């Protein structure tokens, strides 16, 4: 699998036609293309309905029309008025960024160590970290809750973040990518007088940046959408992340669906914008982590 094969789609071919290998456009192919396109549009329809309803007045939400007769931002003004959503955004950002930074740093450090060092106990560390992949997080939430309660970590950022600061998955992903860093580079750097930390940080890390960004995307996304642990670890609205806050907000809003759709839109729009900008990198990153992990 080359990176090129993942990202470029079918753009390489120069012949005309809807499908790869078509010379004249055949009617069957037009039908297939149309069905595929309609499927793609159907995939995003829930998001379109959500956004459209968030721009409607309450009396209009029963209509199926996608373009509101009188579009309004009133729902957004209302939902954002008490500042709760801003707070949840900041919480989610802090948690997701801090966790991502920690995972990228430590997983690549451990992955590098397991890949490039030979030392006593290496095999034990390797197997121990591998074995953590077999333990579902659901099995650990009650001990984690117990730990957080004992140390007073409930309702703190650290309480939300601590279980995810390092991952076995990322460690093995990075270990695989460090295989591609030639040992000669490391020996040369050692002769040049760099210490081992400098070799890792200045020589090895720049050579695996695609893997680092892929891991970062994956971890950030996972933390941004995480629900069950933040739900357990927080009980005051000030510490909620976006998914937990949205869940409680929607429960409260009851049948005010235009407000619920506004909340759902607020939770979704940032990721959509980021996706539209970094589309190619995100898909490539997800494929890379998916296949190598």
């Amino acid at each position: 699998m080359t990176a090129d094969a993942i990202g470029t789609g079918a753009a390489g071919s120069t012949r005309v036609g809807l499908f790869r290998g078509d010379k004249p456009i055949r009617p069957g192919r037009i039908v297939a293309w149309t069905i595929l396109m309609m499927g793609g549009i159907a995939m995003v329809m829930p998001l379109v309905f959500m956004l459209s309803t968030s721009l409607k007045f309450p009396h209009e939400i029963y209509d199926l029309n996608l373009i509101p007769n009188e579009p309004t931002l009133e729902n957004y003004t209302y939902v954002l008025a008490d500042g709760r959503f801003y707070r949840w955004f900041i919480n989610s950002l802090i948690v997701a960024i801090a966790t991502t930074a920690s995972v990228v740093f430590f997983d690549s450090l451990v992955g590098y160590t397991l890949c490039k060092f030979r030392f006593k106990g290496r095999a034990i560390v390797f197997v121990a970290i591998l074995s953590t992949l077999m333990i579902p997080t659901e099995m650990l939430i009650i001990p984690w809750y117990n730990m957080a309660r004992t140390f007073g970590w409930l309702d703190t950022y650290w309480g939300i973040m601590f279980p995810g600061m390092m991952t076995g998955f990322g460690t093995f992903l990075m270990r695989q990518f460090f295989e591609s860093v030639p040992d000669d580079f490391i020996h040369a750097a050692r002769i040049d007088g760099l210490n081992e930390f400098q070799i890792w940080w200045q020589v090895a890390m720049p050579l695996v940046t695609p893997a680092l960004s892929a891991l970062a995307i994956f971890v950030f996304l996972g933390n941004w959408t995480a629900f069950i642990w933040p739900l357990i670890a927080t009980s005051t609205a000030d510490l909620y992340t976006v998914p937990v806050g949205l869940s409680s907000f929607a429960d409260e809003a009851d049948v005010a669906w235009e407000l619920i759709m506004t909340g759902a839109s607020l939770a979704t729009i940032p990721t959509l914008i980021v996706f539209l900008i970094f589309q190619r990198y995100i898909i490539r990153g997800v494929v890379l982590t998916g296949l190598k992990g």
Partner: protein
Amino acid sequence: MFAWRDRLTVGQKLAIWAWGFLAVPVVFYCVIRFYPTFESFAISLTDWDVLSDPNFIWFENYVRLWNDPVFWQVLGNTFMYLLLGTPISLLIAFVVAYYLDQVRFMHGFMRALYFLPFLTTAVAMAWVWRWFYQPVPIGTFNNILATLGFAQQPFLRSTTQALPAILAPAIWAGLGFQIVIFLAGLRAIPSSYYEAARIDGAGKWQILTEITIPLLRPTVVFLVVISSIGFLRIFDQVFNMTPQGDGGPLNSTKPIVLYIYETGFDAFNMGYATAQTVILFLILLIITLIQLRLLRGR
């Protein structure tokens, strides 16, 4: 001052560096992963309820699980999510990927459309779909059915329809991931295989069943395992799509993780909840072992 350092061999120096790098992670894994794992088994043998000190009660929690009709129902629901979700999502994803792979015109745009739902927050989408399933005049699906002259459907209010209705957004959100993984798998098949088959006079169907699908086997195994584990751990959708997040109506949609959550964090029956997590662990372990078996058979 540096005398002791000069006496070390290169290998010893590197070992010190390695353990220096591993120091913080080793502490992390011991405290945050291994200790809680053993603690989990231990708690499952107690009647701990957060408020009072735990008593050791041997396997009473497991006996109670065996005799708990709700637990069996919950287990059945969990496997329903898995047995419906995995084949349906993989089949759709494969068909889409198979054709999308051949599409050239607007390929990237189409791929983006299919991929987009994967990036959404499950909680937000659960509420969007919950709205879709409402009765007329609110719910979108029933409005469409009414417009087309079909009968109204109860969806989330029916004990038979609610589970598939909750599964739908879970499948929908996961399709994008499966499609891009399938696309990568299809791309990895050397085109010379296809050319050779075509020269040998193989038809399209023959190429699909005798070249494409067998060569995609690692991709399929990977996706089956990932999506099986995902469906076995379904929680966000059920919690947000059923009233009070109770997995209703009448427990008909409640998966094991929701039962664990209720037992542990509504009833604070930690011992009993932990016993359930141990069962979940065993189920996932068996699936992982089957995966290793299948991969070795390659």
